[in-house]
Each structure stands twice: as structure tokens, then as C-alpha cells.
């Protein structure tokens, strides 16, 4: 089945490698700050390489879990170390593997005290391990562990290397997410115990086992789903639970924002798919109207809020709310196109928004302000920088030929089959996206630069080296998404088949009219 050598636990390595790196850094003497970045770089690059190797070894035809590694961990509670990857998680893994080296090597934390490098890189690597684990876990307990553990490094990164309001933002982020997890934790346990008496027969936290065998009463399933849903809704975030996001994004250091937008928000959307739709198909399908509505609200609301922001970083943060609205919309449309689009959009958003935060970070480094009012005419001062920003922005707007469009189009066209009127409203989001981004661009880049911005430094070679991979992926995925889609699709099909089997739902298929072209 999978091309991977059975004896090499690639997935476990993906988790342990960064963790090991963090451990090494902790053990290193803090008098050798130069070593820290070296170690962090090496481990993250190796992890990235492994993830890319995984991409290559992954078998596109197989819609099941691949490279599965399963070992008992806490037998007393039926908990096991169960990792696996399928089309849905594959690219999130790769994204994580690629994003972290860039964030670690490409972004300078600006520690006035070199000793600070040590915790900084240690936390980043720990974060990577946690994120990897969350995407790979196929065990409820394991997933929860990773889902929670990522909070800690993120908390310290925001709190330690963030901007003026960092502590407040970090705390808000930590507590807000924990509240959500509180419900999920109870829900997880309830799921396990109820599953025991409803088809599974014994205590186990194994996701697949429960999802395949358990059959909950409708009302029960809905309550359990609710528990999970709250946690993910906070993480995504879905309106009205989104207010931690702007603060966290704005206050986080550049690397933090990049990672936060790039992969951590995806924990929510990924969770909704893997632990919402897959685990509780009935409940998910039953509650879809609510989700679709909230998603649409998020799209419009996020866009409008973004338009009025005065802080560039905050603006990008709110744009995330809108983009993730699209992802949620697709997730609860229950069509292959929509869900495939959602999964793809998770990656796209990670790339584009990640890159946007990167660029905003560069602006801050140069001008020490994020206020749009303080910036102007940068395009004249630094045309190449502006061009880079422009490309990323267009992908975020969803201009065809760039990655953002493909995902958005798939989501909308797929959702149109099951939720037409939601799409009619949601599509207006593309107008607003153009509005707020172009307006911001005009204010920041166009016009005649004033004294402060006249000597805005041009894109440096190192920065370009970090930016290029992003732009490369943006263009390539936009022009030739097939390799990605063909790997995602089988798993999505399997998921929908699962839903169809567990509920009465039948995926609508547009009747294929075959007209031989051209008369």
C-alpha cells in the first residue's frame, strides 16, 4: 500500500525531531547563542525534508490512513500512540514542515539580549512538534494532548517576543482556547464511554475505531459534537468567538503570526473535519445550517471589520476571519468539491496570509509602526517589495491564476450544490476582499512617499529568499493545482461516503450532460 519502509516510523519522527531539537537547545549552554539558531534550523529543515519525502511517498490512490504507527500508551484508559496521514492531513503536514524552517531561519526575532534566542527557538520547535502531532493524531486523547500543548509555546512566544499589548493578548488567547478545550475534553470522555455501550464494546480512544463502529443516538451525538464544535469554533475562529484572533495576531512576533495564521488556525478547521464531520456525521449534517450561516457571517463580517482597521496587521488578521469563513462554508457543504476546496484553502490561506504577515513584519522592522496612517508611497521607495506584496495580496483576494482562487472557487461551486443561497451571499465576500485589501494597498504603497517613508529600504536578498518559496507555491498551485487535488480528493470522497453511510444524506451529483462539442 504505502511506499514507505515499514520499519521507519516517519510520522513519529516528524513529531519527535522538532521536540528533540528543542531538548538539545534547552541543554545547550546559553553562552553560545549562535548555536541555537543553527540547531533549530537543522532540525526544522530535516523535519521539512521528511515531510516533503512523505509527500512523495504518499500513495494518491489510497484513500485510507498511510504510514500508520500505533503503539499502546496508557492501556488502563485504552489510549494508544496512533498516528496516520491521509489526503486531508497530508498537505497540512507538509505546510507545517515547510513553514517552520522559513519562520525559524528567515525571521529575525530581534533579541537585544542574545540569551533570549535560546527560549525563542526552543519554543518554536516545541510548537512545531505540537502542531505536527495534532495533525497526525488518530487517537482522541493524543489529539487533545497536542491540541492543548501547542498553547504553551504560542503563549510564551506572544508574551515574550510580541509587541506593546502582548501579555494581555497572549493571556486572552490562552484562556479563550482553553475554555473551548474544556468542553471538548468532557465531550471526548463522554464519547468514549458512550461509544463503549454503543457498538465499540470496550474503552478506547481510537478515533477510527469509534468513528467506524460507534452509533450514537441522534440527540447524544449532537451534544457530543457540540462539545468538540465549541473548541474548534474558538480555534478557527468562527464569529462571534473570534475576538482573540486580532489581538493575538497583532501582538505576536512575526514568526508567531506566520505560524498562527499558517497552521494553528487550521487546527480548528481540520478538527471540524476529522473530529466533527468524521466522528459525528449525523450531528454535523444536522447542524450544517447553523455552520453555514455562521460561516457566511464570518465572511462578510470579517471583511467589513477588516476594511475599517487602522492597523495593517489587524487588518490581515480580520481577513483571516473572512477566509476561514470560506473554509467552514465548504466543510459543511458535504460535497466533494467543497470539502476538497476547503482542505486546499487551508493550505492556501496558510501560504498567503502567512506571507502577508511576513511582509507586514518586514514593514514593521523598517518603520516600527503598523499604523496604515503612518505609511504611504512605499511602492515608489521600494518597488520590488511592493510587487511581492501585490502578488501575495492578489492571491489573498482570490485572483484566478493564483492559489487563492482555486480553493475559493471549489468551495463555492461545491457549496452551491447543497446551499445555493448561502453561496449567493458568500460570493459577495470576493468583492469586499478586493475592497479592503486594495484600499489598504493604496494607502500604504501608493501616493507620494513622505519624509519617513522616502528611504524605505528595498527588499533584501535574505528576505527575498524567504518570500520566493511562498510566491512560488502561490503561482504554481494557482496554475496547476491537480497534484494537490488528486491527493486530497480520494480521502474526501471516503469521508463523504462515510457520512452517507451513517446518515441518510446523499451527495448531489450534477447530471453530466454529454454534448459532443461544437454543433
Amino acid at each position: 500500500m504505502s511506499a514507505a519502509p515499514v520499519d521507519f516510523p516517519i510520522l513519529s519522527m516528524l513529531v519527535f525531531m522538532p521536540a528533540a531539537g528543542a531538548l538539545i537547545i534547552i541543554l545547550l549552554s546559553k553562552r553560545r547563542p549562535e548555536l541555537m539558531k543553527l540547531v533549530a534550523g537543522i532540525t526544522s529543515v530535516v523535519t521539512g525534508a521528511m515531510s516533503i519525502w512523505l509527500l512523495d511517498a504518499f500513495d494518491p490512490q489510497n484513500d485510507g490512513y498511510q504510514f500508520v504507527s500505533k503503539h499502546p500508551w496508557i492501556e488502563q484508559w485504552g489510549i494508544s500512540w496512533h498516528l496516520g496521514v491521509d489526503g486531508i492531513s497530508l498537505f497540512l503536514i507538509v505546510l507545517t514542515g515547510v513553514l517552520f524552517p522559513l519562520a525559524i531561519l528567515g525571521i529575525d526575532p530581534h533579541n537585544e539580549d542574545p540569551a533570549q534566542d535560546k527560549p525563542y527557538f526552543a519554543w518554536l520547535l516545541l510548537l512545531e512538534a505540537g502542531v505536527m502531532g495534532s495533525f497526525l493524531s488518530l487517537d482522541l486523547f493524543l489529539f487533545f494532548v497536542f491540541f492543548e500543548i501547542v498553547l504553551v509555546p504560542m503563549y510564551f512566544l506572544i508574551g515574550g517576543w510580541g509587541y506593546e499589548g502582548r501579555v494581555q493578548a497572549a493571556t486572552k488567547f490562552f484562556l479563550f482556547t482553553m475554555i473551548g478545550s474544556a468542553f471538548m475534553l468532557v465531550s471526548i470522555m463522554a464519547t468514549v464511554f458512550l461509544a463503549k455501550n454503543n457498538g465499540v464494546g470496550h474503552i478506547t480512544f481510537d478515533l477510527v475505531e469509534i468513528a467506524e463502529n460507534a452509533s450514537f443516538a441522534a440527540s447524544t451525538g449532537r451534544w457530543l459534537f457540540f462539545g468538540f464544535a465549541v473548541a474548534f469554533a474558538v480555534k478557527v475562529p468562527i464569529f462571534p468567538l473570534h475576538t482573540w484572533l486580532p489581538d493575538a495576531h497583532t501582538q505576536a512576533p512575526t514568526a508567531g503570526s506566520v505560524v498562527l495564521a499558517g497552521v494553528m488556525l487550521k487546527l480548528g478547521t481540520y478538527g471540524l473535519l476529522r473530529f466533527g464531520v468524521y466522528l459525528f456525521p449525523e450531528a454535523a449534517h444536522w447542524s450544517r445550517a447553523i455552520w453555514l450561516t455562521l460561516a457566511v457571517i464570518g465572511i462578510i463580517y470579517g471583511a467589513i471589520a477588516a476594511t475599517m482597521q487602522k492597523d495593517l496587521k489587524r487588518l490581515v488578521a480580520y481577513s483571516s476571519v473572512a477566509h476561514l469563513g470560506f473554509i467552514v462554508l465548504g466543510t459543511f457543504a458535504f460535497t466533494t468539491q467543497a470539502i476538497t476546496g476547503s482542505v486546499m484553502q487551508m493550505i492556501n490561506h496558510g501560504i498567503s496570509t502567512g506571507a502577508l504577515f511576513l511582509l507586514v513584519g518586514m514593514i514593521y522592522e523598517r518603520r516600527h509602526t503598523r499604523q496604515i496612517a503612518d505609511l504611504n508611497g512605499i511602492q515608489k521607495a521600494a518597488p520590488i517589495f511592493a510587487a511581492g506584496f501585490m502578488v501575495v495580496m492578489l492571491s489573498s483576494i482570490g485572483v484566478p491564476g493564483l492559489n487563492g482562487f482555486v480553493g475559493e472557487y471549489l468551495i463555492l461551486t461545491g457549496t452551491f450544490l447543497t446551499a445555493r443561497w448561502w453561496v449567493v451571499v458568500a460570493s459577495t465576500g470576493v468583492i469586499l476582499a478586493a475592497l479592503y485589501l486594495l484600499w489598504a494597498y493604496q494607502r500604504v504603497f501608493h501616493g507620494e512617499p513622505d519624509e519617513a517613508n522616502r528611504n524605505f529600504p528595498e527588499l533584501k536578498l535574505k528576505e527575498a529568499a524567504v518570500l520566493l518559496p511562498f510566491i512560488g507555491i502561490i503561482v504554481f498551485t494557482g496554475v496547476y493545482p491537480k497534484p494537490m487535488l488528486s491527493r486530497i480528493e480520494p480521502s474526501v470522497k471516503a469521508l463523504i461516503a462515510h457520512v452517507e453511510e451513517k446518515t441518510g444524506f446523499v451527495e448531489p451529483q450534477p447530471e453530466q450532460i454529454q454534448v459532443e462539442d461544437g454543433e
Partner: protein
Amino acid sequence: MLDVIWLIPAFPLAGFILILLFGRKLGEPKAGFLAATMVLASFVVSVGAYFDLLSMDAHDRHHVETLFSWVPVSSLQINMAFLADPLSIAMCLFVTGVGFLIHLFAIGYMHGDPKFSKFFLYLNLFVLSMTLLVLGENLLVTFLGWEGVGTCSYFLISFWHTRDSAATAGKKAFVTNRIGDWGFMLAMFLGFEAVGSVSYGTLNGAAESGVLAQSTATAIALLLFVGAVGKSAQLPLYLWLPDAMEGPTPVSALIHAATMVTAGVFLMTRMNPMLAAASDYAPTIIAWVGAITALFAATIAVAQNDIKKVLAYSTVSQLGYMFLAVGSGAYVAAIFHMVTHAFFKALMFLGSGSVIHGMHEEQDMRKMGKLLKLMPVTASTFIVGWLAIAGVFPFSGFWSKDEILLFALVKSPVLYAIGLVTAVLTAFYMTRQVIMVFFGEAKWESHAEEHGAHGEFKPHESPPIMLIPLVVLAGLAFAGGIIQLPSFGIVPEAWRHKLEQWLEPVIEAGEAHITDTGAYDNKAWLAVVASACAFAGIGAAIAIYAKHKAKPIEPKILADAWKYDATVSAFMGGPGRKAFAAVAWFDKTIVDGAVNGTGKLVQGTGGQIRKLQTGNVRNYAGIVGVGVVLLLAWFVLGRGVL
């Protein structure tokens, strides 16, 4: 040649990449020539494709070239594929042809601009997108080009982005277009839901074979029209086009006159079977929107003083004409007028560019005049364009306009009337412009000191690189009519209706058949009427602006474009902005306030309960005692005695 059809977009793409990489090294003028060459190459390929098709039997003139599978997800299979058929090739021909000429002109026009190479970078990108748009085998590829040209127009309008007006205009163009794209996207979704595909073949096939429900067809057609309205600057979304004149003049000529703005017309023609399958009111709506836009814009053009603004509104008006044609089922006429319009409007834009160039970036016609002597070539070519658009026999505009009016009459006399009035106005304001610019007395001398930079100010003729395109276009604008000559009983059989025969396989489904109507028989008379109108307009203008027989009537309201733009902006800046601000406030105060409030609440509660912890041991004992009593009460009363 058809199997290498992809070369048509490929060349501009190559040009784009080359300039992107080496643009700065190449510098001026090499970059320009590189770009022009690339477009020329595409033109050559198009010509080759044209002859390939020509060599085929009329009904086999249909070739699909699939490059790769673009967006394949289960039932949705979208290919990156090109469709070579009479329509797309015709479009390619004049897009690349006119495009090439404008490239040449631009080399001269952009002389000395610090961002010379970047300009041609954008131009090539534009041609790439435009060819994708017309060659696309399915709606999505077309949409790719559709958005591409939109983006390029954004780049080019705000090319001189240090000017705020330019930046704003670019943004306005993009956003307004997006409103149209919303309709386009919904049309695609609906099409996919209906027939499981977005390829023209399938959609139109379904429409023709009647598989498609009429309601669906209507919805798709109208949603596409929404897209067209955005792209082709029809009411109510035309707003961006006049502002788009902020861009360099070649851009106005290429994008905002000849090619991009006609994309809407192209799209409707491409989807004509859908329109045919739709309910009758669909085409009627289109016709009316077109007619009203035509008249509306013409009235505004009458009172404009900016040499380019006049042309801009005239463009809007002419586009209205085309949609009038589409709505009347006169697809041939629409395309015909699109082509001729491309010729003479491009010609006049370039001419105006040449004038502006010669006047040192002066655009106000009131500061011009008497340029005929100083800029003979420009002037004479411009006059050709004038006569063409005015619809004077035998210039190209005469033929195409006649076609449209003919069908309009069949559709509805009222539409015909509107068309005529528009024709009069067109002739009038164009004459007015020609007089103000090239005749009368030279008002620019009084403004010499403004240009005191190089001492004694004197407008000068443009360099040959700019004049050649003018001449060529002038030729086309004069003779363009031959591609679609009516009979009038005198025109030899072999010369008639070339374009119609050529497009026939594409538009047969939608084309209205009027040969049996009375209007058709009186074609000649209609032509006379039209010419009469043209001369009436010209005459009036001469009387007022040259002979000063009467005071010019240029009401403020027209100069302000019926206050429409102002109203919309006022709304956006006022209530619209307030509403947005309200949402932002709501988010900050209510939603986030609730979150932070919860935190405050918890801490506050803590602060209150804290007061119980007085530190006095007897109070503590009291609290314990209360606890004891309550516990006892539960056990003794709750579970025991009672």
C-alpha cells in the same frame, strides 16, 4: 497552425517573463520592441489559425486544444483548454493586431518614463490575459483572462500611482469590476449545477438541445450579463471607465476602448445559444440597458472638456450600442461594430494621446485649438476617426451602426429612436471635439507661460513611431466596413456579409433572422436616415462651435455626468462608510467587550467574595457555622425527618 493555438497567449507570456527578468537591463526602448514583437508574433499565429479555419468546411471550424487538466475534482472536470473557432480567432486577430499597433505607439509615447519597461511588462500581461479570455474553451479559463485583464487594467490605470487620483481610479475599476464578476461566478456555479460542466460546448449544447430549463438558461444569461455590465462599463456600473482615463493614453486606447471593455460583448456572443434559450425578457433587458447607456453616456459626452473624457464617455455610449445589438439578436452587428469601434476609437485615443504629448500633458480642450497646422498627421487621422464614429458614408462606423439600428428597429421602434438620437449626439460631440482641438483659434498661446519650462511654448508633431500606428488605424477606420457589407442591391455577391458568413457557425443559434421583415427591405432608406442624423449633428456642432451661430448648451448637470458618480461616491463615503464603521464598532465594543467583560466580571466577583475573608477568626467560625447549619439542614430535613 490550430494545434499550436496556445502560442497566441504563449508569446505575450514569454514577453512578460523576459521583461520581468531582464526588463531593467533591456531598458528603453528595447523592452518596448521586445513586447511589441511578442504581440506581433501572436498576431501572426492568429492569422495562421485564421487561414487554417478558412480552409475547413464552415461547420468543422471548431478546434479544441487541451493543454492540461486544471481543476479536476470528481464530477467537476475543468481543463486548461483553448477553443479555436471563427469567433475566438476573429477576436484574437483584432486584439493582437490593434494591440501590436498600440505597443508601437506606446514606445514613443512612454519615451523617457522611468518605468518604461514595467509599462510593457503590464501591456504584455494584458495581451496574455485578453487572449486567454477570448480563446478559453470554458467559462473558467475565460474567467481567468477576465480577471487577468481586470488586474492589468488596475495596474495600468494606477500606473502613475504617486498621483492619488490615479491610484483611486485603479482601485475603483477593480472593485467595480468585481461586482460584475460576482454575477459571472454565480453563472458558473449555476452552469455546473445544471449540466455538470462549465465548458462552452456543453453549456451551449445543452441550451440548444433544450435540455436546459428555460429558467436556468435565463438565470445564467442574466448573471453573465451582470458580469458583462461590469466589464463593459454599462449602467449602472460604468462609473470606473471615465476615471480609468487616469492611465497612460495607450492604455486607454488598448484596454478601455479597443479590447477589454468589449469582453462583455464577446462573452454574450459566445453564450448566444444560452440567451436564445432564455425567456424573451432576458434579451430585452440587455437591449434596453444598452440603449439607455448609449444615450446616457452620449449626453454626458456633449459637455466634457477633457479630451480623453469625451472619448471615454463616447466609448461607454458605443458599448451601449453593441449591447443594444446583442439584445436585438444582432450578434454579427455587435461584433462588427466592436471591430470598427476598435479601429476608430483606438485611433482617436492614440490621436488624443499624440495631441496630449504634443501639448506637453495638457488635456483640457479649452486650452487647445488650431493644431491642424502644427500636428497635420495627427489631425488628419483624427478626422478620419471622427467621420467614422459619426457614421459618415463610407467610413466603417457608417456600416456597423446601420446594422445595429436595423435590428434595433425590428426589436422595437423605441430602441431605434434612442439609437438615432444617440447617433445625432455622437456626431455632435465628436465634431465639437475636433473643432475645439484642431480648428478655431489657438488658445494654448495664452497658456504658454504655464509651460515656460522650455521657453517659448509650441505644440509639436509626434515622432514617427507614434504616427505609423495612427496612419494604419486611420486606414482601417476608413475601410473597416468592407468586412460586412450589405447588399443595397449594388454590392457584388462575393463582397457581402463576409463577417456574417464567417461567424455563422458560432452565432446561428442566437442570431435574429430579419430578412423577412419590412425593415430589411427598407435598409437603404434607414441608411439615409442615419446619415441624415449624422450630418444634422455635425452641422449643429459646426454652427455652434465654429460659426458661433448660437451659444453652446453645456449644462452643468451634463458636465457632472448627471451627478450619478457624485451620488454614488457620496453614498459610499457617507452612509456606506458609516455602516462599515458601525460594524467595526460593534466588533470592538459588543463582541470583544463581552469577552473582556466576562473577565472583568469574574475578577469583580472575586473582589466581592474576598470581602468575606475579613481575617477575623470569629467571622471565619461564623462562616463555618453557617456551613454546618446548611449541611445539617440538608441531611436532617432534606433526607431525614421530612
